[in-house]
């Protein structure tokens, strides 16, 4: 049983116009097995929340706390956070030329577990996970994210999530750029992994579409750097009907 606590989180970035505060006091608690959807208009700070939890150096935490099972996440380096059980499925995964997917996955698994996986079971695990995500086996010989389509990039992120078995996963607009078929495959993957591993999920999205496939336990509406409203899945239905105008113009 794991708990991710975000308390009064304030985050700024440096821009050409000076320091800009993006998150203005975010409070959120996610427990194992729970799926929280964070929804909001563009520019509301949703992705900043995702990157701040993962520890991207661009984002400066000026106030507040992030705790994973009581441990201070903000004192950890990016890789320490990953090893502690946090996982960020990126919206724009970058290319790593010269590094094959197979090599990358094994290296990441070794880093996260602190020991190399047993070769035979590892190969089988990778193959099984790829079959479930409807990925061709030749995929592992390609270089990480190099020449991947949008759908391939997202499946590759979910594949990593499945193999690394994090305690908490943050999915940053994983639905963007996916057609309906790819969205279904990716969503099924997330549901399966959540069920199997009891993982907590923070699902960041602009659109309600993905919520037809991944049922959130909680929905948080994010506006201007903080949570403006929260509720159950019914809140998503209301957003589907009314949009964000009500919050933005409030």
């Amino acid at each position, binding site marked *: 049983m794991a708990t991710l606590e975000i308390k009064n989180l304030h985050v700024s970035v440096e821009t050409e116009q000076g320091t800009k505060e993006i998150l203005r006091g975010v409070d959120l608690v996610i427990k194992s097995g729970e799926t929280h959807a964070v929804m909001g208009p563009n520019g509301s700070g949703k992705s900043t929340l995702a990157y701040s939890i993962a520890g991207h150096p661009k984002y400066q935490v000026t106030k507040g706390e992030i705790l994973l099972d009581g441990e201070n996440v903000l004192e950890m380096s990016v890789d320490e956070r990953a090893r502690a059980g946090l996982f960020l499925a990126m919206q724009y995964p970058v290319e790593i030329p010269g590094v094959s997917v197979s090599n990358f996955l094994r290296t990441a698994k070794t*880093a996260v577990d602190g020991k190399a996986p047993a070769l035979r079971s590892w190969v089988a695990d990778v193959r099984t996970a790829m079959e479930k995500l409807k990925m061709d086996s030749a995929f592992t010989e390609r270089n990480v994210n190099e020449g991947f389509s949008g759908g391939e990039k997202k499946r590759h992120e979910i594949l990593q999530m499945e193999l*690394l078995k994090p305690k908490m996963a943050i999915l940053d607009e994983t639905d963007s750029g996916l057609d309906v078929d790819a969205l279904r495959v990716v969503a099924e993957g997330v549901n399966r992994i959540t069920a199997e591993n009891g993982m907590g999920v923070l699902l960041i999205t602009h659109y309600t579409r993905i919520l037809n496939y991944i049922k959130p336990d909680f929905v948080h509406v994010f506006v201007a750097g903080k949570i403006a409203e929260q509720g159950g899945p019914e809140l998503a239905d209301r957003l589907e009907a009314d949009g964000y105008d009500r919050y933005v113009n409030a």
Partner: protein
Amino acid sequence: MSEATKTAQHGLSEHSHGFGVPIQTRSERPKSTKLADFEEISTREEQWRYISADRLGGLDKDSLDEFSGDIDAKLADGFESSWIDSEHKLFGAAGIPEDRVAAAGWEAAKAAYLLSIPSSVTNSAQSIVTITSISADPAALHIIVEAKKGSNAVVVLDHRGDATLSENIEFVLEDEAKLTVVSIQDWNASSIHNGAQYALLGRNSTLKHVMVTLGGAVVRMTPSAYFGAPGGDAALYGLYFADAGQYLEHRIFVDHSAPNCKSRVTYKGALQGAKAHTVWVGDVLIRAAAEGTDTYELNRNLLLTDGARADSVPNLEIETGQIQGAGHASASGRFDDEQLFYLQARGLSELEARRLVVRGFLMEIVQQIGVAEIEERLAVSIEDELERSAK
């Protein structure tokens, strides 16, 4: 600081006045075994565009000693070694200098270390020649490797120690010979090395040449391949890793003068640290007689940190349209903060992330070597480079 640099550059260029029309085509570049036939080094000359004479440790002067270090040869069965004097017909059989420093070394070396591979060696037997320099006084060394008709062998030339060395190495491949050469420059940090290498390929012969440059303050390697007869195949690979302050230059010349020959040039370099500087120039000349030529050259550089500089210049000169194919590619990429973040977000430390990327990038070349003990040592050397610079 910049003012001082400017003055020095200006002084240099003054000496270069009156040189006449610069050489426009690669085939007209002068060749000579005599230092006096070459002008003083100037950054206005194409060959010396990136490095000034004062960083060459006196190798451009006529005062070089003969090499006084050790040559330790672990020769496979059938290989023969000896010293031959400069009157021997093999002196200059594969090629002669195209620049002043190589000519200085040529003139100063009165004898050459000859490694001979007889036709009876056909099992890709491996010989390792370790060249250890112990003096940093400017010196000259000449090596000739002769691969007799139909032979098939591997020669590793491993350079170590403290050196200021102008070296000429010739590879003479007779008809149908197959020769793999691995030239490793793993000098101590303050060493200066200019290595001119010349390969002459006989009819239907095959050369695989792997250049590995890791250690040394200034290392400038100029491998050339000449096709003396039709049907030759030259594959030139290279890898280099420049740390802070290191200058590593590779100038490749492939001279297609005979028909139906094939060449591939594949060089990859990694750079890390302030003022790490690499230069790669790949000249491929397809002469009018070289119909049916098939050539491709590629250079890739990976900059791991800010403050490093990689120059990459492919030149392709084609004098006949009757060719199979000719192409080149050059690209220098940066290992950037976003790539680092991505890998760290998957649990890799910064050093592990760099290691993964550099290994993936350079191992393709290491694996071309095919000599297990050398491949293992180089894998370790590359890791050491990474750790050293990561601090």
